[in-house]
């Protein structure tokens, strides 16, 4: 057991840190652009930022060189993530591409798909959205109704998706659709690549509680796509998504821990300025510091396991429970500390307004806390299977 980093790794950390110090956009404040500008201007800045990050060699760290990645190891990936988080660098607006599409394509895609799509994600030529959830299929994803029917060498897609983040600017969608009505619901689904410009797609915005245009409804009416847009073997979409997601749960957004720590630091700085931190509040903050440290230890453990070739399974669900809860705690602390200043027109208030409202979604998406607990209880601890989908 060794928690220290090699001199080379430390040097790499320094290198990333100083690059970030020199290159971070100066008008970016985690509360968005400050002074505030339009959502489009923000979007442009974010796309440009991700391009520069990649040009400097700081994205796709552990992805293979053949597909545009840096071909470095998981520890370096952790280091870059920690520095991005500690610098409060802007978060990706292509998370679906980075965290879902590229890993799925790298694991089950064709060689052609890998060579085409993965580098385009890194270069920000393509931004992606994820068409999984439907009005009647949220936690119970296997009850999706959107269908893909074969017609010659094409697929014809009909149905409706909802909560589709980024669909208003993404040019590609990874779509989960039913391809087989004759097998169990879990087995008859497939994953497709759909270009958002394809005729028959209509995107209707839904405004997020945080005030931003974040997600959308997406309607598919006789949308025709080529056979080559199927990802992985037919009818295995669920299995692929679940496997990749399990692995990803442990490795994506490793920067979160450092980022949350910086958020807490910003709050403490603010409170110290205002000089109103009593002992009860100090102890509460100290408790959060302990949990943030524990979160880091988990990151180190998962990275170590990955580095030695271990398989990460459903146990990684506990990480989702941990970080989503912890972030909501920090957001609530912000309410308490900002108090009557919560509506101030200041970067810090704007930042924590965003964090507070956004973090409410974190125990809902990517498998709600209840779904994560079901997974842990049934698949990891081996307790009896409970809820079954009633009435098909």
């Amino acid at each position: 057991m060794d928690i220290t980093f090699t001199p080379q790794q430390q040097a790499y950390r320094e290198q990333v840190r100083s690059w970030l110090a020199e290159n971070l956009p100066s008008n970016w404040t985690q509360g968005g652009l400050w002074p505030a500008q339009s959502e489009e201007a923000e979007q442009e800045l974010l796309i440009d930022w991700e391009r520069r990050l990649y040009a400097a060699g700081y994205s796709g760290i552990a992805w293979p060189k053949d597909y545009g990645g840096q071909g470095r190891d998981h520890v370096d990936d952790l280091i870059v993530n920690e520095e991005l988080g500690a610098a409060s660098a802007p978060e990706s607006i292509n998370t679906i591409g980075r965290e879902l599409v590229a890993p799925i394509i790298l694991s089950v895609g064709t060689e052609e798909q890998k060579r085409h799509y993965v580098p385009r994600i890194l270069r920000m030529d393509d931004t992606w959205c994820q068409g999984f959830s439907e009005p009647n299929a949220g936690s119970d994803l296997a009850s999706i109704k959107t269908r893909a029917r074969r017609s010659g060498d094409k697929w014809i897609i009909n149905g409706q998706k909802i909560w589709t983040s980024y669909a208003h600017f993404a040019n590609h969608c990874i779509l989960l659709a039913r391809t087989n009505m004759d097998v169990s619901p879990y087995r008859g689904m497939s994953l497709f690549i759909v270009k958002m410009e394809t005729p028959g797609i209509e995107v209707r915005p839904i405004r997020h509680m945080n005030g931003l245009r974040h997600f959308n409804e997406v309607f598919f009416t006789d949308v025709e796509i080529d056979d080559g847009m199927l990802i992985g073997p037919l009818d295995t979409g669920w299995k692929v998504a679940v496997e990749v997601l399990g692995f990803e749960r442990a490795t994506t957004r490793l920067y979160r821990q450092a980022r949350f720590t910086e958020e807490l630091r910003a709050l403490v700085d603010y409170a110290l300025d205002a000089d109103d931190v009593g002992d009860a509040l100090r102890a509460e903050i100290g408790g959060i510091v302990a949990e943030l440290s524990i979160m880091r230890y988990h990151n180190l453990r998962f990275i170590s396991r990955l580095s030695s070739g271990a398989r990460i399974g459903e146990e990684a669900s506990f990480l989702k429970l941990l970080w989503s809860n912890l972030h909501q705690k920090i957001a609530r602390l912000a309410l308490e500390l900002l108090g009557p200043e919560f509506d101030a027109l200041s970067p810090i208030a704007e930042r924590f307004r965003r964090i507070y409202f956004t973090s409410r979604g974190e125990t809902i998406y990517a498998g709600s806390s209840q779904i994560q607990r079901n997974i842990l209880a049934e698949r990891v601890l081996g307790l009896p299977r409970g809820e079954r989908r009633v009435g098909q």
Partner: protein
Amino acid sequence: MNFQQSLEQDMLRSSVAATFDRDAAGRGDTALAELGIFGLLVAEANGGLGLGLAEAVVVLQEAGRAGLAGTLAETLLLADTIATAVPEQCEAVLAGGARVVAPLSGTLTRANGRLRGKVTIQHPRAGDWIVVGVDDDAEIVLLPASRFELAGRARIEAEADACEVNVDVPVADARLVRLQGFADRLAILRCAELLGAAEHCFTLSVGYMNERTQFGQAIGANQALKHIAADTYLSLENLRVAVEYAAAASDAADREDEEALCAAAVKAVQVMLAYVPNTAREIAETAIHLHGGIGLTWEYPLNVYVRRIVRLGTALGTASAHRLALYDGFSRSSKVGGKATPSSHLPRNGAHHDSAL
């Protein structure tokens, strides 16, 4: 960086676990000695294994799981000191024959040529020496156990008397040893015991949830209980990394006496103390609840573990004090700079700043 157990540590765990299993009666000293456990932290020059806290944590965790830790933590920690100071005792040390007892709580202060203080000791007659920290944790004193009057305390654990000892001895008579970080190391091993004990409570709970039926099905089929189990699983994983990281950080600081590593080791102990004792106790309390009435009986095995967890946990200081110490470190490293309140666990090198660690 490789923060996971090595193959050797896995093997150590299985042999220690097997030894404790075979010897549920608590007479495992010979078997433990054969595995070299008493020499785990003894330098190779003294005939020991020269291993670190990471390995000692494995041993104490298994001892905690088996409910057989007794005074193993302090005995392992002091073994090298005794073997070095009294070479003729070396063999006895390695055989487990030189037991020491550290108080659950209390330290001594040095003033006017005397060492004074009141300490609470469990198993007061289980060791030849009582080892107590002095002042700021840089020194310890070894006191012959036979020499003191013992005043009784309430029995928290069925098998162990706790006593109060009023120490007042001339410094000249005492065997003082410089042993920096003894309190932190002992805390790490006691938290490892808590981890093992909490794990056992959870294992009993999950077993019971599968076995006990009500309303025609296993109680574990109810989502209300499943979700409690899932949350407890998360707590246990938190406990595990908190203890193992503190041990690994302490080992790293021992290997290389570098400022950042020492600060990281100090902080890791604060994190551990802020989280582990309370959470281990919550896991034990949950276990009682999940068992219904049977969990509340004197005879059911949970009782022993719950009492041990409560006893050890309450002696490790209040969680809020440890949280305050963490707050101080954190705010001092922030841009504005906080106002410090004194913290009980002092850095090894006086270094005290918050790093990414």
